[in-house]
């Protein structure tokens, strides 16, 4: 019975592949092989993001993906960050009665692995911070940097045991605090420009980045710092990237730490049997 059902499902799946492929080749939405020339909207984004001649629609950043993500389509990304936040809050709510903080759990792996992990553990957060801080100049950004940082806490959890992180003062409330701080920075940047516009009686958009002819409020893009010269910070992009880095790295580290706790520890704290 089960074998027949599986066989039927398999035949159906193969049929779906054939139909989808036929439709993909037959439609002119996706050209196979790819044709030459940019699509209209992509051309618009690529030529207006870093256009010094016509600053009406620019974002002040050479990185088109980050500009679209945090400037042209900023509200979508703010909601996306909220969804991520709610998912982690929902997960924590399921395990809210655990009280294992402050106790060392697990001894980690062998001496060789521990040594390698300790060496790598210095390098990974540096790379993560670099990815996040250069998010408006090179490929990458706050989310990518935060994910790389979470890899380092995962390494520490597996290689050195959860006690390594818990013994260094990482606690649930601290990590949740950083997570919330990141979200608060993002939302206050999103609302700062409309608030300024309201004070001065000018048009302004939520999560607006640069000065526009019809909405003349903006974050600017160049700053003079003594000793460094003028630096390009691309308005809100660098601040939003840092806030997102903070939020994602703290949230993912917290999720990994709680997932790694042992079954006995969870039972002892009485979170499951209710």
């Amino acid at each position, binding site marked *: 019975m089960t074998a027949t059902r599986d066989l039927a*499902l*398999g035949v159906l*799946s193969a049929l779906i*592949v054939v139909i*989808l*492929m036929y439709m993909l080749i037959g439609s002119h939405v*996706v050209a*196979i*092989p*790819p*044709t*030459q*020339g*940019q699509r209209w*909207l*992509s051309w618009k*984004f*690529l*030529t207006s*993001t*870093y*256009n*010094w*001649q016509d600053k009406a629609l620019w974002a002040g950043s*050479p*990185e*088109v*993906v980050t500009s*679209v*993500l945090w400037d042209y*389509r900023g509200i*979508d990304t703010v909601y*996306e*960050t909220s*969804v991520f936040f*709610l*998912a982690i809050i*929902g*997960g924590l709510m*399921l*395990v809210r009665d655990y009280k294992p903080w402050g106790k060392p759990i697990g001894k980690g792996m062998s001496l060789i692995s521990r040594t390698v992990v300790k060496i790598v553990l210095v390098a990974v957060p540096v790379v993560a911070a670099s990815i996040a801080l250069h998010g408006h*100049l*090179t490929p990458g*950004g706050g*989310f990518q940097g935060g*994910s790389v940082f979470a890899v380092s806490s995962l390494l520490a959890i597996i290689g050195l045991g959860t006690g390594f992180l818990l013994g260094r003062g990482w606690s649930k409330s601290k990590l949740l605090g950083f997570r919330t701080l990141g979200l608060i920075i993002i939302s206050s940047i999103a609302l700062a420009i409309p608030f300024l516009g309201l004070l001065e009686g000018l048009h302004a958009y939520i999560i607006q980045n640069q000065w526009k002819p019809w909405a003349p409020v903006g974050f600017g893009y*160049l700053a003079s710092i003594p000793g460094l010269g*003028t*630096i*390009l*910070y691309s308005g809100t992009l660098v601040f939003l990237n840092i806030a997102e880095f903070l939020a994602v790295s703290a949230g*993912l580290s917290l*999720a990994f730490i*709680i*997932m790694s706790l042992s*079954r006995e520890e*969870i*039972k002892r704290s009485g979170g*499951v*049997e209710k």
Partner: protein
Amino acid sequence: MSDAISMMIWSYIFTLTIAIIVVAVYGMATRPNLVKKLILLSIMSDTASLLAVLIGMRKGMVKPPVFPGVTYTEHAPVTQKALEAFALSAVDPIPQVLVVTAIVIGLAVLVFLGYVVLLLYQKYGTLDARLLEKKLRGEI
């Protein structure tokens, strides 16, 4: 490279990606283990992202959608000509933007489902969907 070979390679890649997605759906339907279902879900969402990025490929345009040579301190104004030359050599940025969003949402779903699977195992002591169903009904 001739058009026929190019067509063949691209059709092969697209068929392979769609086949991976369908096989992952098939696996989610037939495998009873919840962790295997979770792994297949992540394979499916990552392959869908790969498909979106592949659609962003244009002929002869392989550079990342980042204007080259700009750093914190080096940021000379760019001429219109250089900008258009850059736009003609970069890949389509829009699928990449959509994929970043999709990856974040996929990760959020994965973390949440991971917690749910963990708790189900803690409470019922099994990851088998068939056994779990019986236990939830109170038959075992």
